[in-house]
Structures are given as C-alpha cells and as structure tokens.
C-alpha cells in the first residue's frame, strides 16, 4: 500500500517539476540552506544536553552564524549548485547533535558530540596545526624526491636500452613490494627516523611515477619522433620536448597513484617511528583514549589529503590544457 502511495507521489512530483521548468525547486532550495543551519542552532541551544559537554553555546552560535551567512548568500544568489549539499549538511549536523549530545544514542566516549570536536579545535589547535605542518613537510620532501626521480627513471627506461637492461630487474624486484614492509628494516638501517620515513615515501611515490612515465613514453607514436628528426632534432629534444610532453597524461596518473601511496606511507611512518605529525598525534590520542582528538586529527588529515589531490589536479589541468577532455576532481 505505502509502496504504491510513494510511487504515486513520486510521479506527482516529477509531473509538477516537468510542468514548470523554472519551478519551485531551483528558486526555493537556496533559501532552505540557512534555515536548516538555524534550526540546528536552535536545537543545540534550547534542548538541554544529556551530559556536561563543553562549548555547547559556542557551537550554537557557530551554527547560527553559518545559517545567517547562508541566508545572505541566498539573497545574493550565490547558492545554486551547492544548496542541496548545504541543506543536508545542516540537517546532518543537527541530527548528530540530537543523537549524541541530547540523547546519547551511541556509546561514549568512542562516539563524540559535535561540541567535543569543536572543543578539540579550540583547546588543541596549536598542536594539531604543528602536526599538520610537520606531516606536510615530511610528505613534500619525500613525495617530490620520489616523483622526480621516478619520472627520471621512467625516462631512462623509455629511451635507453642499456638503462633498461640494468634497471628493469631491480624495479621488478623492489617495486611491487609494499614500501611499508621495508619500514622496520629502514628504521634500523637508517639512523634518522626522519630520513628513513622520507626514503620510504620516495620509494612509494617513485615506483608508480617510474612505471607510468615509462609506459607513457613507450606508447608515443613513432611518427612524432620522425617529424622532429626530419627537422634535425637530436636525442635531447626528442626526449624532453617530444617524449615527455606526449607521455604527460600517463605521468599524471602515476603522480596520483604515488600521492596516494605516500599518504599511506606518511601515516604509517609517523605512527611507528617519526615522533611528530598527524599520524603520531593519532597514535598519541589513542594511547590516552582521547577519541575526540582522533576524530579531529582524521578531519585534518582528510582535509590535507583532498587539498593536495585537488592541488595536483589543478596543476594537471594547467599542463594538460591541450587534452580534449579530462577527468575533473
């Protein structure tokens, strides 16, 4: 019965929407984002907490400020595409607040409240920030070194028979090994844990970069070389101005895979040996059963990873403007 009802109402809704193309939804939706957040603010403020949580009022104010900002945004017609997401986000945060802070539906302390998370950012932002910076520094050095040498090795594999003869077996032996497996050995053999972490991160990002640079160069249409050769191009030009740009789309695939691998390597290295960074922070939080801190660290980590991936996509879009269509991040 209810199934047919739903089907019927669904039909009715589609019918209305198609009848008025510039109808209710696109006009009204942006105006719902602000109220969703304001509702979350009111619930947070007026419904008493089930326990003694920190910063409840601050959280209510924060929700309220976002709600008002969204109303202004709707008035300025800034919200169109993102409105549905902003509504769901506001409602979701409100629901979380009700479930955990007002009703304690899930066991504490493993599941925290929104205000617990906010409190971590207020009281511990300094250490979180330093951990983030440390992780970024560690990642930047290892990833850059690994990617650059990976591309260099890939060029060698693609363009030089002798280089391929000597390097290919080594690559086949070491490459498929998860770099994490080398971690215990690296911490013993390399006196500085920082250096060991960097070396493994370079390995993690270098392998995919090398393989995909190589396969990209191997797939270059030989006619491209002929065109340049008939105009007098030498090996240097053929490698850096023909093979390399032609292989660029593949190289970026390798750089993405390498970035993912070095994220994993970064966190593991920080948890196991390097005594700083977001991984270490998480490890510490777990040791002290500080679950809100763990969630906060996860949040920062996710922001860092997606931010870096976005950055890489931006660089790629700049370099590969000539491509007909690229995947958008």
């Amino acid at each position: 019965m209810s199934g047919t009802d739903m089907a019927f109402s669904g039909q009715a809704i589609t019918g209305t929407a198609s009848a008025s193309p510039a109808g209710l939804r696109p006009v009204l939706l942006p105006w719902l984002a602000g109220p969703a957040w304001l509702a979350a603010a009111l619930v947070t403020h007026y419904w008493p907490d089930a326990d003694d949580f920190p910063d409840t009022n601050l959280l209510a104010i924060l929700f309220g400020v976002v709600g008002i900002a969204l109303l202004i945004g709707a008035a300025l017609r800034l919200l169109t595409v993102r409105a549905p997401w902003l509504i769901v986000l506001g409602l979701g945060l409100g629901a979380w607040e009700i479930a955990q802070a007002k009703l304690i539906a899930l066991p504490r302390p493993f599941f925290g409240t929104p205000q617990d998370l906010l409190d971590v950012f207020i009281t511990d932002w300094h250490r979180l920030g330093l951990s983030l910076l440390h992780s970024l520094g560690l990642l930047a050095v290892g990833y850059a070194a690994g990617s650059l040498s990976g591309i260099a090795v890939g060029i060698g594999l693609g363009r030089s028979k002798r280089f391929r003869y000597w390097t290919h077996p080594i690559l086949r032996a070491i490459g498929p090994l998860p770099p994490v497996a080398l971690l215990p050995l690296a911490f013993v053999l390399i006196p500085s844990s920082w250096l060991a972490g960097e070396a493994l991160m370079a390995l993690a990002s270098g392998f995919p970069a090398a393989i995909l640079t190589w396969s990209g160069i191997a797939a270059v249409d030989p006619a491209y070389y002929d065109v340049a050769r008939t105009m007098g191009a030498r090996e240097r030009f053929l490698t850096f101005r023909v093979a390399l740009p032609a292989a660029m789309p593949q190289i970026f695939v390798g750089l993405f895979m390498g970035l993912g691998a070095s994220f994993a390597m970064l966190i593991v290295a920080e948890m196991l040996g390097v005594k700083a960074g977001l991984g270490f922070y998480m490890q510490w939080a777990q040791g002290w059963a500080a679950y809100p801190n763990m969630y906060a660290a996860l949040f920062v980590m996710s922001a860092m990873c997606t931010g870096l991936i976005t950055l890489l996509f931006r660089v790629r879009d700049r370099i590969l403007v000539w491509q007909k269509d690229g995947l958008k991040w």
Partner: protein
Amino acid sequence: MVTPSPGNGLALSLSGIRHGYTIGGDFTAVVSGVTLNVAAGEFVALLGPSGCGKSTLLRLVAGLEPPHDGEILADGLPVHGPDPDRILMFQDPTLYPWRNVRQNVALSQDISGKRDNAAIDQVLSLVGLNGFERAWPHQLSGGMAQRAALARALINRPKLLLLDEPLGKLDALTRLTMQTELHRLWKERGFTAIMVTHDVEEALFLATRIVTLSTRPARILSDIQVDLPFHRHRDDPQVLQLRRDILTQLGHRDDW
C-alpha cells in the same frame, strides 16, 4: 625547362635503391631498384598505386631509414640521416597535440633555437590559418590540420621539400588555391620538390617532371618531362594529351 633561382635547391641522385619490410615474419620488398636523378630546382611528381612504396621512398630520401641497398646522394654527399635541409611533410598531419597551431608551425625553429615570429606569421597566412594560431590540433578539421603541417614543413626554407600527398584532404577549391600558392612559393624560393600525389591534374599543374611507379615493389614505369610553360590550363590540349598518356601508364587507358 624552367630555370628557377639558382643555389636554393638541392640536386638529388638515387641509384639502385632497394628496400623492404618484414611483415608478420615474411620479408616484403617495397622498393626494387629505383634510380632517379633530380636536378636542383626541379619539381617532380610521383604517381603510383596505393601501397606501392611512395611514402617509403620519401622516408629513405629524408634519411629517416637507410635503404637496404643503393645510394642516395644529396648535392653529391651521401645521405646518412635526417637533415633540416631536406624536410618531409608526412602523409598524416602528425601535429603534436600538446602544441597549438602556432607552436606546431614553429617546431623547426624550436629545434634550431632560432625564433622568427615574422616568418611564422607569413607562413600561417600563406596556408590561410591566421586566426587559428592558438587552436589545439584536436580543434582543427582534417584539411586545416594538413595545412598546418604544410606550414610547418615550409617555414624554414628547406632546399628539398618532400611532400607526401600534401593536399589530399582538402576540398577541391581550397586545393586549387593551395596549388597556386605552392607553385608561387616554388618559383620564388627555387627549392627542389618531390611530391607524391594521386591526382594527375595536380601533377600536371605543378610539376616539371612526372614519374610513375609500378605496383609494389615500386619500380619506375615512366619518367615524363612536362615541357609546358606555367599557367597551364586544365583544358589545354597538350595537358589533356599528357594526362591521357599518364593514366594509360598507370593502367587506366579506358577510363577516360
């Protein structure tokens, strides 16, 4: 015979050229004993059936591959490899997709390290591509891509221009315009040209000499001097007679 401006062209001599490829484990002869002497400044049209080895012959002359047998001399010196004096315009445009039209045309200048923007502008307007300088190759039509490739071949004033069906993808009218441009350029610069074409009229309009090739493996069937003054008319009785002769050579006596 026409006397072009001296010194800009290159004399070419092919003697006993043989070449072949291994396809699927079997050796296939592609060029079998081609001997041909081309004086500086001549415009030779190469005609022959599809797959007979015309493109292969041009690759050998360009120095992209050494022939299995025989010798190629450019101005008396053996050809050992590619040289910017002998530019080959390929049958496919093969523009670099990561370079826009202007950058593609400037390729040989990038290789030699000598940028000359005026020359780029000039050759772009010659092929009628001004306004498309910043277009990417995938945004061009087939004919536009071919004109861009022609511009890329013309830009650095080679002494020998090897053209592999340079106007094959153009519509009939653009083709006429480009033939006129090509003729004007050849008169003006005096380079030596070898042009593969499937179009007998085009050969008769442009060439001082028409060489027909057999089916694979390519041999020279006939070598015809076109001793007609330029501004040849397509319906000139002498042109029509030559055309009939050449089509007969290629085995199409009854078709016209």
